[in-house]
């Protein structure tokens, strides 16, 4: 492994947090990540109320899209920035409080041990948890697993979990052009196409009332499916 991980392993982890209209909810998320010693890149994806005020006094890297582009675009922006700052390990993390900062160490360990280039968080692996997940969402996610295996050949237990870790090399390989939610499928496609060594580790995702209200509707799966389908013609 490279030298950058020798001093403080956690400070070499760059956590990219895309945020759109998260308001106050993002502050505890960011504080939790900072408390664990990570570098935090918040990409404010054109929120109506800029996140600058909420994040005042925190040592985060704050980037702002002047126009709302979508979560995929925000991730790509954050990843490019982190790479430019010399990040060796990049983690993608939701701003709405669904993800647990305590999962990051387990997520990055396989990359440090050079056992994988990409590590994907899974709610459905033994040891993982999806707290207060709705039945319909569970069903759609299971269908997505089947769809992903069919289209990419990746054998995964969870596909649209925003908690992931990438080695520098893997992050450099990624080209997220799906600005919207189909980026999750696109990332998996690129893992398959570039034959990046991947692993899943169990993580906990908590569906709070806020995150459910803020998050994806189950019916949006059809939009994602459509975007992914359109992607076939974009190559």
């Amino acid at each position, binding site marked *: 492994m490279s030298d950058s991980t020798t001093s403080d392993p956690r400070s070499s982890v760059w956590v990219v947090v895309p945020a759109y209209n998260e308001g106050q909810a993002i502050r505890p998320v960011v504080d939790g990540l900072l408390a664990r010693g990570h*570098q935090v890149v918040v*990409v404010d994806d054109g929120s109506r109320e800029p996140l*600058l005020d909420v*994040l*005042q*006094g*925190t*040592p*985060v*890297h*704050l*980037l*702002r*899209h*002047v*126009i709302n*582009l979508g979560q995929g*675009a925000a991730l*790509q*922006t954050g990843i*490019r*920035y982190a790479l*430019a*700052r*010399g990040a060796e390990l990049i983690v993608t993390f939701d701003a709405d409080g669904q993800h647990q900062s305590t999962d990051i160490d387990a997520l990055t360990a396989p990359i440090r041990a050079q056992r994988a280039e990409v590590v994907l968080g899974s709610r459905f692996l033994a040891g993982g948890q999806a707290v207060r997940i709705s039945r319909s969402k569970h069903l759609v996610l299971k269908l997505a697993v089947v769809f992903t295996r069919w289209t990419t050949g990746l054998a995964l237990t969870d596909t649209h979990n925003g908690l992931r870790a990438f080695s520098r090399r893997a992050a450099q390989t990624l080209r997220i*052009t799906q*600005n919207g939610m189909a980026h999750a499928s696109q990332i998996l496609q690129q893992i398959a196409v570039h034959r990046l060594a991947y692993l899943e580790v169990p993580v906990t995702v908590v569906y709070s009332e806020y995150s459910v209200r803020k998050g994806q509707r189950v019916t949006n799966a059809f939009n994602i499916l459509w975007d992914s389908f359109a992607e076939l013609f*974009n190559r």
Partner: protein
Amino acid sequence: MSDHMKPVQLLLILGTAGALFVYLAYFRSNLSDRMIGLLLLSSAWFSILFPDYTTVVAHVLGVGRGVDLIFYLFGLFTVFALILLFTSVRTQSAQLTELIRHLAIRDAIVGPAPEQQRAVGESDEDGTLH
């Protein structure tokens, strides 16, 4: 052509001429675009002035009436135009994304503070505000 022009023919001729003028004046000015535009306009005028000939062409292609042939071609052309339009919209949106991303990275702030906001660009390495 009959002895005198029907009102609808005059309307169509003026309409197509106007459309071509606007297209060339405001959107395209390459020589090739002008040539293609003039070619399309002359074939449109021909089929407006001599509608019977379109039926001759229609029969060759296995279509009963000239007006049906024109209708089919119109549908095809519309689909083609939509694809072109969709492609250019997608290209522009990719360019817009790149531009917004560039601005976001250029104007990144490390450690947002009320009075001191500094664009760091790619300069300092340790990620703190000096």
